[in-house]
Each structure stands twice: as C-alpha cells, then as structure tokens.
C-alpha cells in the first residue's frame, strides 16, 4: 500500500537477540499503524459522516452497511463472478498494453527516426478520449470481450508508453557509451542498460496504467456487459442499489491496492541497488 517503495528491513541492530527482536517488533507495529493511519481515518469518516447525519445515508451509506452488502455478495458468489469478469478483461488488456507499449517505448526512445515517424499518429490517438471512442471500438470490435479488452489496452497503452520513453531519456549517457564500447547489440543494450535504468519510470507507468484500466473498465462495462465490477456499479447505480454500488467501488479500490502493492514489490525487487534519495 505504498506510493513508493520504502525500505523496511532496517530492523535488528542492537545487541541482545531478544530485546532487539522485541524492539524491532514494536517498531514494526508502530510503523504499520502509522502507515495505515490515513486510510483508517478515511474509513472512520466514511462510517461517521452518514451516522452523524452529516451526509444523507441513502446516497452515502456508512462503511459498515457497505461491508455488510459486500459479505452478502461474497457469500452468494455474485461478487466473485463480477471480479472474475473484470479481472480477465483488465489483466488481458493490461498485458497486451505492456507487451506492445514497453518495446515500442524503448524503440521510440532510442530510434529518433522511428520516433519522428510515429509520434504524430500516436499523439493523435493518445489525446482522444477512450470514452468517446467507445462507440468506435464497438463498431470495429463488436460488443463482445474484444472491444472491452481493446479499450482497456488502449487506456493502459499510453501511460506505459510515455513512461517508458521518459525512462529511456533519463538513462545516463555514459552507461550507454560504455555499453556501445563493448560493441553490445542494440537488443543487448536495451535489456542490459536501458531497461534496468528505466525500471522506476516504467513501473510508474505500470501503476498509472493499472489505474487507467480501472477507470475505463467502468465505462467499457457500461456497454454490452453482463458481468464485471463496472457492470455491477452501473447496474447498481441505475437501480438505486446504493450500498451495492459502493460495495463495487470498494472492491475495485481494494483490488487496485493489491495490484499496486504487487507492482511496488516487484519494482523494489528490481531496484534494490538504488541509493535512497529521501532523508529520514
């Protein structure tokens, strides 16, 4: 649940195995509390605002009520069905976007002529709202899974592309020189120099893309869908099943958090070598 990687493992320094472990445990507990404090505050507000009558319970039901609905939906298996539907779409769309955007971003960042050629069309599409294009996607890809996956891919594509290009641009030129002096092939320079350098930037792109995929999924599942969390939210909203709508939103947010955590962990793995920039 972290926006950027934080280095945990600073525990265990003092002598005396037990005391040290105890202290470390306490520190870890305190750290975890501190790290969840803001989210807990949000949840507390969510519970209290409607309970205290500061907002209308009908439109903003307290968290506990939403959780109740969530549990009920999980029991009946309805929730799992929607989650499965959405996950297939977003994972496929995200995966396709990664598979295309990362290599393309590396190539565009590297080959000036390719960049010059592709930029105008890419920028044109990038600045077209995925939502506005929904009818066009349906026109070309039909109302089935293809158009939904297509629009998720479209939405994930550009954050990954731009971040990858920005990552390539920030590579230390001296490292590239050194690789070129070893007569490394272009693909080898990519994988051995540019990719590791660009990791933080690429991962920022991934995390933004994951967010984008959530955003458009709601829109994509507005049309031609019969299951999925976006469908659930739409359906609940149009039928005034307000707690159910919030249950859908909460589920998406929680899944988003989990995915983000996965990405942050993966990034941390890949950039252990980095000198921490921040001060304590």
């Amino acid at each position: 649940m972290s926006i950027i990687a934080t280095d945990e493992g600073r525990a265990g320094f003092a002598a005396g195995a037990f005391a040290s472990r105890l202290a470390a445990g306490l520190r870890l507990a305190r750290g975890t509390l501190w790290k969840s404090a803001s989210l807990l505050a949000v949840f507390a507000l969510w519970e209290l605002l409607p309970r205290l009558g500061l907002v209308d319970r009908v439109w903003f039901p307290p968290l506990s009520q939403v959780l109740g609905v969530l549990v009920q939906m999980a029991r009946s298996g309805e929730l799992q069905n929607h989650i499965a539907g959405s996950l297939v779409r977003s994972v496929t769309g995200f995966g396709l976007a990664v598979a295309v955007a990362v290599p393309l971003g590396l190539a565009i960042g590297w080959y000036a002529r390719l960049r010059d050629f592709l930029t105008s069309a890419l920028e044109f599409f990038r600045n077209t709202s995925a939502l506005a294009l929904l009818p066009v996607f349906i026109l070309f890809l039909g109302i089935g899974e293809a158009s939904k996956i297509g629009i998720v891919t479209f939405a994930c594509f550009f954050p990954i592309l731009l971040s990858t290009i920005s990552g390539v641009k920030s590579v230390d030129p001296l490292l590239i020189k050194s690789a070129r002096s070893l007569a490394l092939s272009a693909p080898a320079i990519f994988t051995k120099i540019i990719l590791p350098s660009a990791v933080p930037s690429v991962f920022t792109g991934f995390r933004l893309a994951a967010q984008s995929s959530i955003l458009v999924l709601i829109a994509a599942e507005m049309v031609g869908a019969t299951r999925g969390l976006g469908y659930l939210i739409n359906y609940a909203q149009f039928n005034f099943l307000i707690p159910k709508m919030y249950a859908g939103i909460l589920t998406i947010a929680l899944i988003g958090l989990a995915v983000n955590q996965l990405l942050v962990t993966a990034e941390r793995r890949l950039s252990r070598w980095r000198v921490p920039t921040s001060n304590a």
Partner: protein
Amino acid sequence: MSTVFPSSAVPAPAPKIALRVDRHSFRLRDAGGEEFVAISGVAIDVPAGEFLTIVGPSGCGKTTLLEILAGLASPTSGSLRIDGQEVTGPGLSRGIVFQQYALLPWRTALANIEFSLEAAGGLSRHERRDKARAALELVGLKGFEDRFPHELSGGMKQRVAIARSLVYEPDILLMDEPFGALDAQTREVLQQELLALWQRTRTTVVFITHSIDEAVYLGQRVAVMTSRPGRIKAMVDVDLPRADLDADIRAHPDFARYRHEIWDLLRGEVARARASATPTFWSDPTPPRERSQAAPSN
C-alpha cells in the same frame, strides 16, 4: 569519410591503429549552435603491441581522441583504420576504461566485471564468474564482490572499471586516466600489473595520463598534446630497459631526462592556456572568521 592526409603518410607494414583527425568540433547548445574545434590535425599511427601514452593540458582533447579511437565518436573530418580496415563504430577488439568509471549502478562489483564478459560472449556463466573474481582480486578488491558501486570508494570504483576492461583481454586497450583516483601505492602496483600484462600479451595500449612520471614509466612513446585546439606537439620515444619489471627504471638516469623533456614541452602549453588567469574574486582580504562574524547573511 575522407582524409586530407596523403596516403603515402601511412607507412608499410600497416600499423595496428592509423588515426587521422583532420578536425573534430562540437556544436555548442547555448551559443546559438556555435562550433567549437576540439581537435585539429592529429595523425597517430600505433604499431601493433605498442604502449603509447598521451599527456596534455586539461581540456586539450585527450578524452575526445580516445572516444574517436574507440569508435564512439566519428571525427568531424578524418578517418580511423584498425589493422588497415576503415572503422566507423565500436568493436570488442578495443576495450576502454572511461575517465568516469561508467559502472552499472544496479550491478555488483563482480557483476559489473561479468558484464564485459557477457558482451564478449563465448564463456559459460561459471567461467565468467571465475574470471571476474580473479580480475577483482588483481585490483585488490577481494571481498568486495557483492558491493554495489555506490557502496565503493572512488578508487575502488575505478579499480572495478579497470578490471572490467582488462578481463576480456581486448586486442587494443584504451585507458583514460585509469589510475587517477588511486593512491600512489595502489597505483604503482597496478602500473606494474599492467606492464606485466602488456608484456605477456603484447596488447596494443593507448593510455592517457596526467602524470608525466606515469607516462614515461609506462609508455614506449609519449604523445604530448597542445592546448586547444588539440594537436600533437611532439612524439617522444622513450627508450628504457623495461624487460625486467623488478628493476626500478624510475631510478634510471634517462628517466629523469625524459621526464624533464616532456615537462618542458608541456609547460609552455599550460601557460598559454591560462595566460590571463588572476585571482581577483576574493573581494575582502580580512580572514574569513572575522568576516563571517561581521557579515549579516552568514
């Protein structure tokens, strides 16, 4: 890429390296694309197996010259031949040690050395590791295999960079002040190691240094460059008995003579480069402690 030098200037048999830089200039970004001539009219032939050292005032174009030799830059006008073949890009036959280390920050010391072996290819993972370990040991970094570059001191980084280019045994070694950040003793040890390596393998070495001692100690020939734009002012043949590495050739009477000759060649250059420098910016001759108490903003 044509050259203005007549081809008759190239002696037979073809040298290992034949460099002709008619002119090499940089385009400055800020000054409205003004051109800056860094090197002008340099012709160097290096026979196979020679150890050539280059000295010259700071900013005279030594690094630029080395990058051209490495194929990392093409002379604005000129040509580079290796073994008689025109060369336009970098190649594995030439290994380069950069003035600024150029270690991969995400790789440990050992993995940084393996990097060049990976580029060279032809070795198993295991062999690479063993060679890299040996190379690290050679530069006195046994025990630091798993350190990341930012966990190493300046001199250690430089030693890793040296090990990295030695380990894959290129035909030609291009070294840009490789021993600059080393203490005198480590430096001497590595100088000896380098000479031993060179004598054993007869690698062709082009070696940039700021130390005249080092230039004379290592080089069969010393190229002395002029300040901007860089030219070769003189080529000094150093004829010292290097066969016995254990003999202290620094004590040889000719050593001091070469040293002096090169010193003289350089002195004029540096003076020319700094003709007008005078320390005029210390506004206030009072000692800083007093001043800092008086000044309001400190």
